[in-house]
Each structure stands twice: as structure tokens, then as C-alpha cells.
């Protein structure tokens, strides 16, 4: 008797819920959207605050830097000189590294490759965009943050790093003559590159022009993928992190040369006005 009662109660509860859902479906849907939006909104704000706190703590923790930093350097008129010194300090530190590294100098609109202090490749940047975060960074934080090369934690590109072609050894000279290797000079995939550096600094390289439909689709797909990964982080409730972005446009072949030259453990020197 008691089990029957329980079953009846369960059925009635389910029915009640169904009826409630059917009546208030639209309202529930609106509430759900509202709460998701609210969650995303607060997560965005909190992550921004966390990132800024992290940078402030980094500056404060470096007692040597704080001691050597003169408060007069905070004068806005000294900004360009301070930034130039910071850039050169980072270049000196970068030159201690044995492998090829990346320099992004937006003051002079240049992207370069360097090895042991020697510039081996230079590209003029025609167009770039930087986030508000970079503009608001105080001079002191700038001097600390960018006087060291930034470690690049991950690289994602639409082109392959090493265009390896696997070939099996021919059995005889006849097969060798038939399978003689000829490079495909027409292979030009659209080039897009994302570098995720320390402190949530993301540098996005895009090819300067998108002449074909394939280029345009690739550009859109690249952006969707990046946005998608950020949305996925939110969905899986990953620790929120604010990422500041720099978008740089350079020619396709230059981007290809730069990406293929970079080692797995890349360091990046960043400078901007």
C-alpha cells in the first residue's frame, strides 16, 4: 500500500512539473538565457580583475625592480623613452637564448626574427589592433612586464610547421625514375597563427589580404575556432582567465617563414606605443 502511495505521489509530482513546464516554458527559457548571460558577464569581469591583480602582484613581488625603478619614470612625457629602454632590455635578455625567437615591435611596425641578438628576418606590419588592456597598462607595469621576453605557451596555425612528404624507397632504378620527386610550388594554404603567451597575452597573426573565397572562409573559421575554445572554457567552468589580444596583419609568405622558423619553446619580445 505504501509503495503504491509513493508511486502515485511521484506521478502526480511529475505531472505537476510537466504542467508547470508547459505553461511557463517561454518564461523558463528566458530565465535560463538571463542567468547564462549573467554568469558570462560576471565571469568576464572577475577574470579581468584577476589578471590585473596578477600583474600588480608580479610588479610588487620583484623587489629588485621596484628598488631600481624611479618614480619620475611615470611621467607620461618619458613614456616613449621608458618603452624604448624596456624593449632593449628585453632584446638583451632574448639574445641569451640559443634558438630563433620572435620580436613584435609595434612602435616601429615591425615583426622580426632574432637569434643570439642578430636580426635575421624583418617584416613591415601594415595593420595591427591592440586591446584596451595594453593602452591602460601603467608605465611601471609595462616596464616590468615587457623588459623580459614572454614565454609562448602554445602555438596554433592553419599551416603545417614542417611540410613532410613521406616516400618509400623504390625497388629499382626504373621505379626511382618514375617516382622522381618534384615539389609542388602551387601549394599556398591560407596562413593564420595564434600565439598564447604568458599573462594571457594572445598575439594573432593574420595574412594581410584574403583574395580568394577559401582565404575568407579560412579566416572566419580561424576566428570561430578561437572564439569556440574560449566559449568551451566557460562551458566546462574552467578557471576564468582574461586574455588580451593583439591582431597583426602581415603578408602570407612572411607569416609562413616566421611560423616555420619558431621553435616549440618560443619567446616573444613585445613593444608598443
Amino acid at each position, binding site marked *: 500500500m505504501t509503495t503504491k502511495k509513493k508511486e502515485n505521489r511521484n506521478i502526480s509530482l511529475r505531472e505537476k512539473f510537466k504542467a508547470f513546464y508547459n505553461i511557463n516554458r517561454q518564461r523558463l527559457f528566458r530565465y535560463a538565457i538571463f542567468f547564462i548571460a549573467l554568469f*558570462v*558577464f560576471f565571469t568576464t*569581469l572577475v577574470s*579581468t*580583475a584577476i589578471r*590585473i*591583480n596578477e600583474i*600588480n602582484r608580479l610588479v*610588487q613581488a620583484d623587489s629588485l625592480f*621596484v628598488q631600481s*625603478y*624611479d*618614480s*619620475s*619614470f611615470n*611621467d607620461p*612625457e618619458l613614456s616613449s*623613452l621608458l618603452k*624604448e*629602454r624596456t624593449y*632593449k*632590455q628585453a*632584446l*638583451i635578455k632574448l*639574445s641569451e637564448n640559443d*634558438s*630563433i625567437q620572435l620580436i613584435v615591435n609595434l612602435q616601429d611596425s615591425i615583426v622580426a626574427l632574432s*637569434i*643570439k*641578438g*642578430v*636580426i*635575421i628576418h624583418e617584416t613591415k606590419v601594415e595593420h595591427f589592433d591592440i586591446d*584596451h*588592456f595594453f593602452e*591602460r597598462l*601603467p608605465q*611601471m*607595469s609595462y616596464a616590468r612586464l615587457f623588459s623580459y621576453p614572454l614565454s609562448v605557451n602554445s602555438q596554433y596555425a592553419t599551416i603545417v610547421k*614542417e611540410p*613532410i*612528404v*613521406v*616516400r618509400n*624507397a*623504390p*625497388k*629499382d*632504378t*626504373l621505379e*626511382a625514375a618514375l617516382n622522381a*620527386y618534384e*615539389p609542388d610550388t602551387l601549394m599556398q594554404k591560407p596562413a593564420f597563427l595564434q600565439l598564447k603567451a604568458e599573462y594571457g597575452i594572445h598575439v594573432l597573426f593574420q595574412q594581410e589580404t584574403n583574395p580568394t573565397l577559401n582565404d575568407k572562409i579560412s579566416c572566419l573559421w580561424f576566428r570561430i575556432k578561437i572564439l569556440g575554445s574560449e566559449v568551451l572554457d566557460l562551458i566546462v567552468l574552467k578557471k576564468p582567465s*582574461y586574455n588580451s589580444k593583439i591582431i597583426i596583419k602581415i603578408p602570407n*609568405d612572411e607569416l*609562413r*617563414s616566421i611560423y*616555420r*622558423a619558431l*621553435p616549440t619553446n618560443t619567446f616573444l619580445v613585445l613593444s608598443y606605443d
Partner: protein
Amino acid sequence: MNLVNKIKEAFEVSFKNKLIIRLCKILIVFVAFIILSIQSQNLIINLKFHKNITVKDRTNDFELAKAKLEKDIKQLNHKLDSKTPKSHYLVINSSSNEFSLYKGKNLIKKDKCSTGSYVLLKNGDQQQWMFKTPKGEFRIQTKTISPIWKKPDWAFVEDGLPVPPVNHHSRFEYGVLGDYALNLGHGYLIHGTLFQRFIGLPVTHGCIRLNDDNLELVYKSMAVGAKVYIY
């Protein structure tokens, strides 16, 4: 006019169905939400970064601070300049198959060259060779006039020939490397080629091929110990 009327009708029907109105509402809310998020984010950035870390006023003098920065920059520039070789050095771009010959900061010559093909040659499961040009900083180890090529095993495997003993006469080929060769170590050379039409393409087994004129220029300019940067 018919087409315009048709579009108008279609719009009216859609509006009756409230589909477009709903979509517009969602779009407006979405855009408003994004704008609100970005503005709030910027507000947080402005507020949080406004609090500057306090440091002890040491000079509090604009001119002194400016002089210090200028002095530091001069010293750093001097340090950085000393990193660039004063004599001849070679830079090789293996992606675009180009070389640049410099003396100090002056570009002497820029032209096409050939670098590794990125072919991975497999000889069953036992052996494999990757034909790529290594990247990094190298030095000219030795220089040779009229170099002779001692063919390695892969040269025979690639041609479908049996591999001869180590010092067999069939391993030695004359004239195929051009008039000069500059040794970068680990078996990698800068040399000439009989197949000049392939210059500018990724076709080598890891070496760097130049045309006859450029090879002569590079050979005569680069001393033993001179630096070669490959990327």
C-alpha cells in the same frame, strides 16, 4: 517593381509570423550584452590599473630621469650592436628558399637558393632519412675547391640501387657539387649544383644549393669561422 513588391510581401508575412521581430530582439540583446561586457571590462581595467604601486621618490626630477633613460638606452644599443657580426655572414630562409649575404649591417646580396625538401625517405621499417635543412646558428668549418661528393647510403636507396661498401669507388662523384663547397658540419654543405633550374625550390637533402655566381661570391666573402644563420 514586381520584385520589390514581392520582397515587401515576404517581409510583411515574416513580420506577421513575428520571426524577424524575435530574431531582431535576440540580436539586439546579444549586441547590448557584448557592448556591456566590453565596457564593464574596460571599466575594471581603468579602475584597477589606476592604483599605481607606490615607489619611493628618489630623484623626482624629470631631467635627471630623462638623462638616465637616455644613458641606459645608449648602453643597451651598444651591447645589442656588438651582437651582430662585423664581418661577412649568411642568412638563409628555408621557407622562401632565399639567402642574404651581409657584411655587418649592410646587405651585399639577396637571391634564391635551394634548401631541404622535407622528404622522409623510408627503406622498410629499418631505415629512414629526413631531408631537411637544420635551423639555427652555424659556422663555416672548412672550405673546399672542386669538392668531391662521397655519396651516403640514402643516395643509393633513393635511386633504387644496392648500397655499396663504405669506400667503394661508386660512392665518389666529381663535379656534382659545383666549383666550391663550404662545410657547416654534421654533413651539411653550402655547394653548387648541376640542376640550376631547381634553384629557389625545396629540393635538396638538407644542404644549401646556390647557383654558380652566388656560390663564388659566398665562397670568396665568407672566411672559415664565419656565421651562417638558417631559419
